[in-house]
């Protein structure tokens, strides 16, 4: 659906995006992740044609992106804003028409959305008279009113109250079902795990990892299992030879503990169990799957593990990557 190829963007003084390539699919929610100042907003602005890349191309449905494609893109910026003194209906009509809808179409779609959200009484209100949550709904309607093929949401859940968050989440999922390709830029890793199908992680202008969420998570599986048992911790530890390494342990009560054990040298869980069953009484076993939060922190800080998951071997440089030019406020 959307293919970003080798995008490079430099501002005087620093590189905001360094050879970024990503692909999103139709009917898929794509998570664009990265810490503040990584270059997410720069990339989003390039896709929205607000700024242009120095190098690289963007393709939509297999052909190169052109100016008129902005009508196929819906954009919810991180910095939300509406014309404060303008009536809600005028405002929605204005943005809908800027996205290429005819007057009658815009009106029809506006009515549909307002009825759906049960907010038809707001038509003649000015935005400054609305509460923050109300304005957020209007903002969302403006983003999707022209039925974009591609929806780009920058931190869609920040600033929304829980009720609106749920509402927006449901709308996003229903748009996904209709075949919209959705890109979400966020730091909120819980929401990533909940709704994203694929992710790309950008750190310091570079693509650090990307792929299907399940693949990424698999890649981060470290063959580590949590074993809860009854028995002596030191007996358990002694039983593990060079084939296993005890990563972590904690005592639950006097004679029960949980141990995190990593399998080494092609050993299986069965091998591990065979080794420890003689010394302790096992109560529960499960694999430790990294959360997106862990993956994010690991990928960004490069801590704890070797950089096996890195596409390139370079360790990201320190500093010198503030988002000062281009006004990114990520």
């Amino acid at each position, binding site marked *: 659906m959307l293919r970003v190829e080798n995008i490079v963007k430099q501002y*005087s003084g620093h590189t905001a995006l360094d050879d970024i390539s990503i692909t999103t699919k139709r009917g898929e929610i794509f998570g664009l992740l990265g810490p503040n100042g990584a270059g997410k907003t720069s990339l989003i*602005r390039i896709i*929205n*044609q*607000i*700024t242009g890349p120095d190098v690289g191309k963007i393709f939509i449905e297999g052909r190169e992106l052109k*100016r*008129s494609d*902005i009508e196929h*893109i819906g*954009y919810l*910026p991180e*910095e*939300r*804003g*509406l*014309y*404060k*003194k*303008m009536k809600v209906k*005028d405002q929605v009509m*204005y*943005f809908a*028409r*800027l*996205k*290429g809808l005819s007057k009658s179409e815009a009106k029809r779609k506006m009515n549909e959305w307002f009825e759906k959200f049960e907010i038809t009484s707001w038509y003649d209100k000015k935005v400054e008279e609305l509460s923050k949550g109300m304005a957020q709904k209007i903002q969302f309607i*403006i*983003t999707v009113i022209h039925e974009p093929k591609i929806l780009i949401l920058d931190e869609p859940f920040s600033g929304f109250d829980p009720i609106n968050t749920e509402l927006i989440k449901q709308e996003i999922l229903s748009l996904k079902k209709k075949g919209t390709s959705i890109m979400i830029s966020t730091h909120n890793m819980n929401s990533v795990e909940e709704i994203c199908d694929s992710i790309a992680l950008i750190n310091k202008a570079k693509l650090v990892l990307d792929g299907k969420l399940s693949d990424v998570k698999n890649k981060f599986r470290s063959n580590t299992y949590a074993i809860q048992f009854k028995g002596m911790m030191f007996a358990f530890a002694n039983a593990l030879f060079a084939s296993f390494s005890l990563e972590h342990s904690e005592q639950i009560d006097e004679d029960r503990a949980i141990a995190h054990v990593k399998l080494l040298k092609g050993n299986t869980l069965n091998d591990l169990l065979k080794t420890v069953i003689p010394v302790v009484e096992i109560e529960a076993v499960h694999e430790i799957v990294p959360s997106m939060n862990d993956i994010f922190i690991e990928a960004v800080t490069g801590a704890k593990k070797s950089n096996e998951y890195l596409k390139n071997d370079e360790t990201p440089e320190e500093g010198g990557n503030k988002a000062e030019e*281009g*006004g990114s*406020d990520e």
Partner: protein
Amino acid sequence: MTKPLKKVVTKQRKEGQMSKVGLVIAREYSTRVKKRSFFVLTLLIPILMALVGIAAIWFTIEKEKHYKVLISDPENITESKIFVSHDDSDPPATFYFTEQELGPDDYSREDLKDFDIFIGVGRNTFTNKTIKGIYREEPSKYARNYILDKLETRLEEYWAVDHGIPLQTYREIDQNFKFDLHDVEDVGLSEGELSKKDTREEKTKKQGVGFGFSILIFVFLMVYAGQVMRGVLEEKTSRVVEIVVSSVKPFELMMGKIIAIGLVGLTQFLMWVVLLTIIMAGVQALFISDLDPETLQALGDMQMNPGESGKISESESTAAILFFQEIKWGILIPLFFVYFIGGYLLYASIFAIVGAAADSETDTQQLIIPVMIPLMFVYIVSISILGSPDSSAAIIGSYVPFSSPIIMLQRVAAGTVAFWEVILSLLILIGTFVLTTYLAGKVYRTGILMYGKKASWKEIIKWLRH
């Protein structure tokens, strides 16, 4: 078959883009015109101007009170005669004579109640060189000068004769000299040709009309270019700009805004003209129909030369003639619009830069200084060249694009400027605003998405080069 099809597609796209600027213009225009402040200002200003006008007329009419002057002349020096010109069909005072000597008790006498001013004339008037008088109501400067002028002439005639100078000789001496001063370039011109040329005074008066336009343009530039700045800043601080520029090119947004606000300015101006015309017509129908034409003429003189009233015969109704015949409105008014639009586009693009670079209203005050100081300077220059529309300051000012919208109209009004000079000045102005608009587009594109910090002029220049 494919070729024409492709053409249609590109054409549609172009129209699509055009209509986006159109949408921006429509939004910017309608939100401003629908504002209460626009409505109030549009209505209030003509009413205020009309009120000021009515007040001026009222006060002028008030001054036109007719005074009855009683001259107490026991020695019959004036022989109960004062020469009054036939041209003065509506003099501010009439003279009456009595040979009675009047004292403090007499002013309250029943038979003298109708007189407003009492003047005593005697031989001591000559020795003291003082004419003494008493008034019930202080006469206007105009009436006072009139009375003194007539009385002085009569007394001097008496004095001359008293000293053995024949009346005829005295009157010849008393006549003023004409100062027939000419430009060295005009030597050799015939009398008729000379009379067609404007004197400095005439030029200055005409230039004054141009100065009115200067002020109008100056005020409009400040108000509407300032609105562009605030509009840009408002979109930036409310963060709405990011959604807008995801649908419209930043340059289209900026141009849409500039054009719309310019149209608001023109709308307001035209509404003022229409409203003022209606109000003035109404005022004329209500009040002025009672007044005779001479009063109106005098009114014109009063407004033109408020300082030197009195000698009415001198200025005649030059103001009226100037206003209705000598000023080439057919040229001035179209030029006013052309220079207003040119100057507005120039300053609006610069103000848009300031709006895009600032992060809050307070930032603009600092950033605007380098723009405001030259503009203020231009304003001062435009005042200082009053009376010398040919000075080098005026000539330079009428070419420099930042001042030409304010200064050129004065020179045009004064009639000291050639056609090609106006064209050249306009071409420079157009070239400059095209350039500043292009540069503003560049700064605007970068500036509007820079949240949370104010850019310095140094940074703005950096963006220009990027």
